[in-house]
């Protein structure tokens, strides 16, 4: 009798301890492995930015050096490429965020003929394969055949980037606007604010987190874009195109330095936007 009770008591105890073991170690191990998998390429980039390779090929670990970090632009053409990418990213973010925010406001706030189809069409650039967008933009620019659209230049890259960025901005800002209580704007007008003041004192501050998120997204999409840029760049070289061009003859370690820097800046920006969102969520 006591023996039976003992085994009966033992069985659940065993399964509980197995559960605890699973919780404590297996889950943790899984998380570590998953994060490692995600981080590995970045670690490799950072690692090879302090490698001292023989010749041009930076594919095998040889020795530690900080030379490349001290002269990050010590490769011909790299500085121009990074500068072009940053210029395009800044400008396209600025313009796309402004236009996209206005479109989102119009779509959410006003009823007008064609609002429904505009709502749908805005998704199209996001759904179309980049390679198709790039090819069709190229066709369009070439068929216009006149400056500033042809010959292809930084300007055409900018136009392309603004185009695909607008969609992402509209979708992001629209989500924020849709969650905004209409009564808040009415309350502002009720208290004596005209349309202009209402926008700047109430609407804008409340959708600002959405606009900031949209701008960050646009910037990262632009600086990273290769496919569409490649079609619309002509002789202009952006940072992603520079890497692509140099890969056959060996990627210089400076690319790793810039890559690591971009990663660090991106992490910084994401951290910043999280802090920002938290603050405005509390507000």
């Amino acid at each position, binding site marked *: 009798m006591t023996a039976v009770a003992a085994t009966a008591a033992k069985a659940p105890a065993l399964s509980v301890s197995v559960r605890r073991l699973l919780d404590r170690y297996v889950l943790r191990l899984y998380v570590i492995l998953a994060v490692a998998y995600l981080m590995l390429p970045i670690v490799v980039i950072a690692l090879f930015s302090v490698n001292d390779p023989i010749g041009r090929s930076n594919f095998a670990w040889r020795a530690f050096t900080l030379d490349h970090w001290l002269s990050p632009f010590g490769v011909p053409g790299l500085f121009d490429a990074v500068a072009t990418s940053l210029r395009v990213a800044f400008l396209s973010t600025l313009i796309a965020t402004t236009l996209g925010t206005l479109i989102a406001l119009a779509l959410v706030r006003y009823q007008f003929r064609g609002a429904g189809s505009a709502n749908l069409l805005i998704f199209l650039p996001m759904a179309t394969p980049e390679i198709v967008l790039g090819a069709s933009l190229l066709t369009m620019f070439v068929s216009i055949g006149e400056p500033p659209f042809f010959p292809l230049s930084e300007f055409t890259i900018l136009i392309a980037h603004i185009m695909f960025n607008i969609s992402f901005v509209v979708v992001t800002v629209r989500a924020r606007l849709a969650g905004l*209580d209409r009564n808040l704007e009415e309350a502002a007008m009720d208290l004596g604010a005209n349309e202009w003041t209402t926008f700047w004192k109430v609407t804008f501050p409340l959708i600002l987190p959405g606009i900031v998120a949209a701008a960050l997204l646009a910037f990262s999409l632009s600086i990273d874009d290769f496919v569409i840029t490649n079609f619309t760049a002509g002789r202009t070289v952006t940072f992603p195109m520079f890497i692509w061009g140099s890969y056959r003859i060996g990627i210089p370690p400076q690319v790793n330095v810039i890559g690591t820097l971009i990663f660090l800046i991106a992490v910084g920006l994401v951290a910043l936007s999280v802090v920002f969102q938290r603050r405005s969520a509390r507000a």
Partner: protein
Amino acid sequence: MADVAVRLVQLTKRFGGDATGRRVAQYVEGANPSSGFLAVDHIDLEVNDGEFFSLLGPSGCGKTTTLRMIGGFEQPTEGRIELQGVDVTWLPPYRRNVNTVFQNYALFPHLTVYENVAFGLRRRKVADSEIRKRVLEMLELVELPGYERRKPSQISGGQAQRVALARALINRPAVLLLDEPLGALDLKLRKQMQVELKRIQKEVGITFIYVTHDQEEAMTMSDRIAVMNRGRYEQLGDPEALYERPETRFVAGFLGVSNLLPATAAESLNGHAAFRLSDGSTVRVPAGLIETGRNAVSLGVRPEKIRLIEVDKEVPAGMNRAAGTIVDASYLGVSTQYIVALRDGSRVTVYEQNVERATKAELWARGEEVVMAWSPDHCFVVEEENGATEPSVDESVAVA
């Protein structure tokens, strides 16, 4: 005295005569699909200066739409709005001397309580020192001193309600519009705020137009009430007049409980008009209540006006009487609710205070024969059932 603060002239709002509106109207009961949905139907109304005025009616009757047109958030399809004698029909909200307390308060979440309350003054470029003085004064008035630096997310619903009130009142509007401002509060807080609101209104002397679907709330606070139904108001008067002398079935059913008995006109009896009930008994009503030419009507009596008397006892002189049988008795503590069946089977609700008969054994029992007696002065007359304006709310104890 009694200057007119707000005058509505034939005010009408029709939602969506366009394609979308017609599509919506298909699914709204009573709407005419070809011309959209008539939410407010040619209302004429005058609200006096300094008055606490309520728009009372069931959900969907057009209260909010009326209020929003006065506030300037909705444009009327027809009609005119005058504010202190000036036509403001087409002015934007920021050019009307009217402020609104929204149902969901609509406090600016990114601003502190102080800045929320100061918002209106800042738009008018009032000096900082003056703003400070008046904001603190206002927070004092709504009993929220010390809350200046909180954000709206850091205060309770009742407090948000007070901030919304302060934010509107600080502008000293000619009229304050309140759209079910207490709807989101729990019962206890609501009762407390009703008293508060009335106190504040007296203190600042501003005209309040108050929208509610809660008849008790409207009765407690209002100087006058307009009872709304389907885009118009059916009766306008002070709470007592509405309760004691409802003029339509709808008003009788919406404010409190009424017994409505089908009746036909009979010869007048010593100075009183008389009606015959369906069980054959004759009742008297004050002569002034009868419109000539109305033959079949419904006769109304409030349940608490009826006294139950033993069959063998004398009915006091001058009282109306009808015999019946108790079919149900529910003990409610303060009072007991009886359902009495008349001889023809129609039912009457009677409330009796538990004073003379207080213990279970002393109450009327089911099946007992009784005589109901009530004063002719407590009668009112409304249109018969299925009359022109059939009430859309459920009259819980209306008698068939």
